[in-house]
């Protein structure tokens, strides 16, 4: 067993080392897959949780697409350990993995994450060069092929919400898109952001409700209740457009339009006291409550295939 401290923030190297440790320690259900590499050639690693019987329906979960949202990468690591260590002990997790595979990408933007540790803690975007501009990076959550370039994204390469030159221009985004498409049976697409304590479903690029609005809202509220049950943390539930603002090119809009009905984005703690600089003492409580919300959605996905 490794000595990885899940209650603190880690470098990318330390996180990647722990992925190896988890795959080694829980080799019966955990394996590490490389789905691509970042603009600066860092590997994009996914943990696959599977009991290994064929190509099962699966759930996708990613974190850290915005690099400065450190509590998301940290929570994803705690959740990885939780899933691995509770399989065979917790009936709920055991049942989940006996029916579904889970793919977890804990650091979706590794270049940005490394940059937040070495150079600028407030960095949000990728680290790709923009032709014709001195400004670096694209907002990887405005770069998906869903209303690309529409309201809520910027065409200015110097903006923190720059959508990029074209949809999927960022290799970090394209790698996930290719993986999801090649898999062919992803039933849920879940993504972790911070902060604001929100649980959102499509759409962000338009303000018309999705066809499954009622069902997604019911699932979202059930998940928010689960989150609140642990420490009383309250979440607001709704579509991206109704909850925050119109934002085009987002990942869950792409996944939903691609046919993945259960598409949700979490905005984790807090509501602004610390914002992106959430104290490390809150990592584990955040991860614990987030896991309860995720588990509620995952159980629904298990029981309601489509």
């Amino acid at each position: 067993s490794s000595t990885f401290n899940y209650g603190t923030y880690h470098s990318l190297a330390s996180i990647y080392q722990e992925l190896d440790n988890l795959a080694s320690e829980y080799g019966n259900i955990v394996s590490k897959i490389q789905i691509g590499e970042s603009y600066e050639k860092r590997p994009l690693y996914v943990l696959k949780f599977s009991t290994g019987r064929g190509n099962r329906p699966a759930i996708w979960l990613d974190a850290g697409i915005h690099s400065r949202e450190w509590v998301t990468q940290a929570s994803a690591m705690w959740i990885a350990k939780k899933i691995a260590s509770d399989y065979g002990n917790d009936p709920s997790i055991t049942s989940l993995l006996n029916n579904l595979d889970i793919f977890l990408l804990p650091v979706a933007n590794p270049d940005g994450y490394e940059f937040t540790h070495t150079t600028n803690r407030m960095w949000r975007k990728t680290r790709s060069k923009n032709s014709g501009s001195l400004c670096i990076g694209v907002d990887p959550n405005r770069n998906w092929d869903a209303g690309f370039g529409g309201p809520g994204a910027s065409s200015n390469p110097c903006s923190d919400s720059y959508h990029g030159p074209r949809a999927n221009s960022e290799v970090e985004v394209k790698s996930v898109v290719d993986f999801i498409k090649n898999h062919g049976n992803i039933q849920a697409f879940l993504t972790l952001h911070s902060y604001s304590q929100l649980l959102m479903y499509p759409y962000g690029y338009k303000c018309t409700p999705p066809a499954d609005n009622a069902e997604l809202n019911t699932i979202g509220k059930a998940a928010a209740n689960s989150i609140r049950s642990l420490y009383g943390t309250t979440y607001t539930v709704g579509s991206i457009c109704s909850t925050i603002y119109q934002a085009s090119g987002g990942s869950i809009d792409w996944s939903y339009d691609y046919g993945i009905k259960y598409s949700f984005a979490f905005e984790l703690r807090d509501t602004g006291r610390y914002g992106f600089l959430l104290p490390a003492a809150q990592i584990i409580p955040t991860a614990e409550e987030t896991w309860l919300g995720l588990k509620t959605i995952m159980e629904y996905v298990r029981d309601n295939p489509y």
Partner: protein
Amino acid sequence: LETFVGHQVLRIKTRNEEQLKKLRFLETLDHLELDFWLNPSTPALPVDVRIPAHSLQAVKIFLESHGIEYSILIEDLQVILDREKQDIVASQQMERS
């Protein structure tokens, strides 16, 4: 590592669409180097923005002159960042010991 000495994070509460428009105008002023943590959306939602020390006075005067309410969420960002760094180092030392 870039420092953020004197940077403040303000929470801005708007009352109407007109005040939101003023904030969206602020967003376009590149020389202020504002970093919107929560973007202007609707009057019901707060706007959080990190403001470098050199722009603080100008932004506060702008907000006050337009009657836009704000409060200081983070007095000095570097203080929080230093604490975060210390926590990480302490944790690494504990792991080693």
